[in-house]
Structure formats: structure tokens, C-alpha cells
């Protein structure tokens, strides 16, 4: 995660907000809005909805600022509500149907790349195509799985942070992460095969 250490500006902003000066929120909004909207967008996949979610999350944060421990960074505390609100919003939309979580053990380049920290060199290259595969694959995950992937890979949260932010036991988080990885691997494998097949057909 990019923002983990509470800056002096952030501390002052929170202190003034706690004293009732609503403009103290300005610094917090400016500091965290892009990361928060991006994370929400990757989960809900609708930029306008993502902005609405973050906007409401800021309002809730201001209302609950008295409960916030100033010695800790604001970012993770705030992002928890953004992630939770995003998964709830997806739940309300009910348009994402998770695939069956059967783990296909057949090795594929994409799956290895996702799971293996030393992947195939050609898959280390980020291309528009591989990016689109990941986008499609994320879309096939359910909201909670997607949230776990975003927290892990986009917000770079640790297990402990994820546990705290999602307010769930560590085992649940690990299980969700594993399921999400497996789902992604399976889905990307399908995309990869389709892509490969298209290339073969063209030849």
C-alpha cells in the first residue's frame, strides 16, 4: 500500500476534523481519493458507482472520526469501509455470478504465471491482451474474492491488515485468497486457451 505512515498533514487534518472543522477532511480526501476510487472501481467495475461509494465512505469517516485512533494511518481504516461498501454494492447489483471453484490442475502458462513467483519470461511482459485477460477474469470472480485480490495485489495489504480490514478470521481470508487465486487461474486458463486457439485458427 502506498500510504501507510500518517503524515503530519494527515494528523493535523484528523485533529482539526475531530475539533469540528469539516475542512480538515479536505486533505484526507485529496490524499486518498484516487486510490480509494481505483480500488472501488476494480471491485464494482463501474466508475460512477465507485465515486459514489468513496464519497459516502468519506462522509461516514467524518461522522465516525471520533472513533479513529490518530496514532494509526487513516488509509487502511478508511479503505476498509470502501472495500466493504464496494462488495455490498456488488451484492446489491447481483450481476456477477461466480464460477464453480473446481481447480483445474492442468498446467497452463497463465495459471503458472499467476501462482508461481518465478513465471515464464514471456508472461512477465504486460501487454494489452494480458491486461484484458486479467480484467475479464476479475469480472468472473464474486465480489468478496475480487476484494481479496484487490487488497492483496492492488493495495498491497498484509494478511494481518486484510484480516483487520475485512473483520474476518485469518483462516477465512486465506481461504478466500486461495479460492480467488484458483478462480483466477482457471478463468485465465480458459481465456488463454481461447486466445491460443484463435491464433492457431488464424495460422
Amino acid at each position: 500500500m502506498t500510504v501507510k505512515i500518517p503524515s503530519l498533514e494527515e494528523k493535523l487534518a484528523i485533529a482539526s476534523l475531530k475539533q469540528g472543522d469539516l475542512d480538515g477532511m479536505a486533505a484526507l480526501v485529496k490524499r486518498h481519493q484516487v486510490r480509494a476510487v481505483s480500488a472501488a472501481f476494480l471491485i464494482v467495475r463501474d466508475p460512477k458507482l465507485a465515486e459514489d461509494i468513496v464519497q459516502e465512505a468519506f462522509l461516514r469517516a467524518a461522522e465516525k472520526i471520533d472513533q479513529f485512533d490518530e496514532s494509526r494511518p487513516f488509509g487502511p481504516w478508511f479503505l476498509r469501509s470502501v472495500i466493504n461498501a464496494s462488495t455490498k454494492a456488488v451484492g446489491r447489483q447481483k450481476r456477477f455470478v461466480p464460477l464453480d471453484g473446481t481447480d483445474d490442475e492442468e498446467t497452463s502458462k497463465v495459471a503458472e504465471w499467476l501462482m508461481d513467483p518465478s513465471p515464464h519470461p514471456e508472461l512477465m511482459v504486460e501487454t494489452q491482451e494480458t491486461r484484458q485477460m486479467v480484467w475479464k477474469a476479475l469480472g468472473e470472480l464474486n465480489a468478496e474474492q475480487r476484494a481479496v485480490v484487490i487488497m492483496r495485489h492492488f493495495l498491497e495489504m498484509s494478511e494481518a491488515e486484510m484480516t483487520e480490514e475485512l473483520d474476518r478470521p485469518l483462516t477465512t481470508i486465506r481461504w478466500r485468497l486461495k479460492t480467488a487465486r484458483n478462480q483466477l487461474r482457471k478463468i485465465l486458463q480458459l481465456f488463454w486457451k481461447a486466445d491460443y486457439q484463435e491464433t492457431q485458427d488464424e495460422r
Partner: protein
Amino acid sequence: MKDKNKPMGSKNPTIQSMLEHLAKDTVLPEKVDLWPIVRADLAASKTLSQPKELLMNKKFTFTALAAVLVLAIMAVFLANNVTTVSAQQILDRAYQAQTQTTNQGIAHFRSEAYDNLEGKSDGQGQDTIVESYSDPTNGKFRVVITDKKTGNLLVVFAFDGSNAYNTEGSKSGQPGAELLIVYRSAQDRPSLIGTTFADRINGTSNAGLDAEAKSIFDKMRLNPHVELVGKETWDNGHTVYVLRSQQEVKSFAKNDPMGLVTLYFDVHTFQLMGSSSSIEKDGKEILISRQQILLDEILPASSHVAWDLSDLQGINIVDDPNGEHSVFETLAPNVNPAKALAAKTDSAYLLKTVPDGFSLEISVLPKQPANQPFFYQAGYTNQAGDYFIIRTFTDKPLEDTSWADETYTTASGLVLYFVNQPSITTRGEEFNGGLMQTPNGKTYAIESTLPRERIKEFVEDLVLIK
């Protein structure tokens, strides 16, 4: 044992990079600005808008009050010694202050302005004092502009509820000059479109500065590199924050359009109190314009104001019964102006629809001259001070169009000849416009602060009213 605070597994920079890119493809960081909405939500929140002490447990009230008192004393001490806010906070608060217009009563402004659009050196521009009164509830206003050096009247215009008063052009403020002639004509309500004082007189702004200062303010809000210079106290006792940034400066003398702009904000109310702009010319800093509010007050609605200018010395009021020197009269400002215009003429062009963010004001000459085309003016203005105006020019086709530097023909056959002339008006606004000829040989004048491409879009939308 596994450290729970470390990220799980090995970091995968590629998937992280992909997620970053996927987000950035849609969520453009420079376009994300939630603060205005969040601020509005916060202001509207019942919980948050309650004073903090009301939310406290009663038994802590006295302790809290004592603490507040100590904090207040400290705040006063600190405010007198250090600058405790950032440039961005000042701009945000000023924006908030601007949007909280209070128009109950008579707005009274006095400001000082210095104009040196030609970029002359050594303060050779014109220093003027502008005093205005306006009552948005009945449309009455009066604006008096005097030369600061000589005290001579330069320009006067007013509306007393039944008569409009205006000087035709402005008179040089030479000592001993003859009386300033002010023409008086019976009118319902004169048009103010395109005038420097339109916003304040119409009550759409409580900042007594013109569109130029507001334009600088808007640009400064979007600029991440604004410097808080500090505080200064003016001769009239006002203490202001001084903010400065580089910005395009409008002037006739520009080789390089970039210059320095400065805005002044009241330290207590955060109201915009003044602006100045300067350019560098031959290695020297040349002041191009400066505005400074000397007085900004709301008088009780019952206050006596000589709307008919009867208190002014040095003017000669001349009746103008035929409206020969008259300014445009606003047509049915509170009902449907397009319909009212259609009832008077069938040779006027209007936009098919009023563009988003714009409002329409139509004005006509109170007394239409005989054997002349029907004179009207339709002005579309937005909150930013931009306008698009079309008005009658002549009922004859143009004989010479060699002056045009660009010609544009619409799908309906309207031909717009863009005029090639200095690109800013005397008010310092970007000027674009020209003459538009219709297929049946009539000509209309177009004037706008919008870019040419936008004007072309507007002209495409013009239709003859029915």
C-alpha cells in the same frame, strides 16, 4: 513463524502493474475531485453540522468550554503570528464563501481598479474608483465610475425602477471638462449582458469583482502550483491572504502570454477581495490590472439610495424620449423571453435550445426606430462569465467581407465572417465574433468570449424564431 504483517507470498509486480493500469485506464487521477461533493455532503449532514459541544455529555460541558476558551485564546495568538492555512484551503474556503450568496438588502460595493492592458510602464494606466449599489429584488442599480486622480466622473449608468440612465461611452477625466451628459429614458429594465457589473447587480455573486477576477480565481483553483505568499494589511484595515500563481494574462502587450496573477482573500470570511496581474516586459514587471475591494456591505432593504442620480454633481441629465441613446431593455425577464420576442418580430435568430449551464436574456430597444430592422439582442451567459450574443446589425447583405480572417457556413446556409481585430475587449476578455449573413441577405452581429470552434457549434444551432 510467519509474520502476519508481511504481505502473503511473493510480490507479483506484473499483476499489480496490470491492476494499476486497469484502474488508470478508467479512473483518471487528474479527473477525480470528490472534495466539492464531499464538502457539500458534510455541510448538509445533520450530525456533522451540529456544534461539537452539543454532542458532548453534559458533565463535560464546563471542562470543554474551558478548553475551548484556551484554544480560542491560542488561536487568536497564533492567527496574529503565523499563517496556519494552506493555499488550497484558502481557495476551497473562498469557493465555499462565493457560493453562499446573501442577497437580502441592497448590495453596496466600492472598489479601486487599475487598467493597463497596453502594458505601459510606470503606472501610466488608468486608476478608477467604482461605486455600485444594487437591489436584485427590484432590479434597481447604479454604478458610478470616477477617475481616481482627478475625481472626475467617467461613466454613469443606473436604473431607478422606471427610467434607465446611461452615458454614451466614457469621457476622459480631464480637469475642467464640461458636464457629463447622462441620457434618461423610460424603461422596464435595462440589459446588463456583457457589462462588467452584471453578476453583482443581478445578485448572482456577492463578490464585488468582475468576471476577470473570477476567471483568475477559477484557474487558480485548478492549478496545483499556487503559492501562499502570506498576509498583508491594506490601508483600509483589511487583512488579506495573498496567493500567487503563474497564469495566462490578458493584455495587448503580450509576447509571452504567461504572467503572474495574485488574488487577495479576507482572512476571516475568505471572500475574494482583490486581484492583480502582471507581465514581464523588457526585463521589468509591468502591472496590467489590479482590482481591490474597498467596501463590501449589505445595506438594509429600506436604505435610501438615490437611484435617479439626483445626488451627483458634474452631470447633466438629458431626457431621451425616443430612446435614441438608450441601452437595451430586458425583455420579460421573469417569463419566457423567446415567446415575448416572437410576438414582436419574425426576423430574430435564437439558439434552438439554451445550452446546458447557460441562461438566456433577450433585450430590445424600448422604442424601435422607423424604417430600420427590428433591433434585438439575445445573450446566453453562464456562471463562469462566458457569453454568446447575437443582435441585429442590418437588413442588408454585406458588401465587403475582405476584413474577415475566417468564414464559416452552417448546414442551414448562415455564413459567419469572423472579424480579425484585437483579440481582447477593453474589459480584458477574450473576444471572438463577427457578422453573420442569412440566406435572405440580413446581417446579425455575433460577439462571444467562447472559442471559435464553440461559436461555430452555437451558430449551427441558430434558428429563425416563430
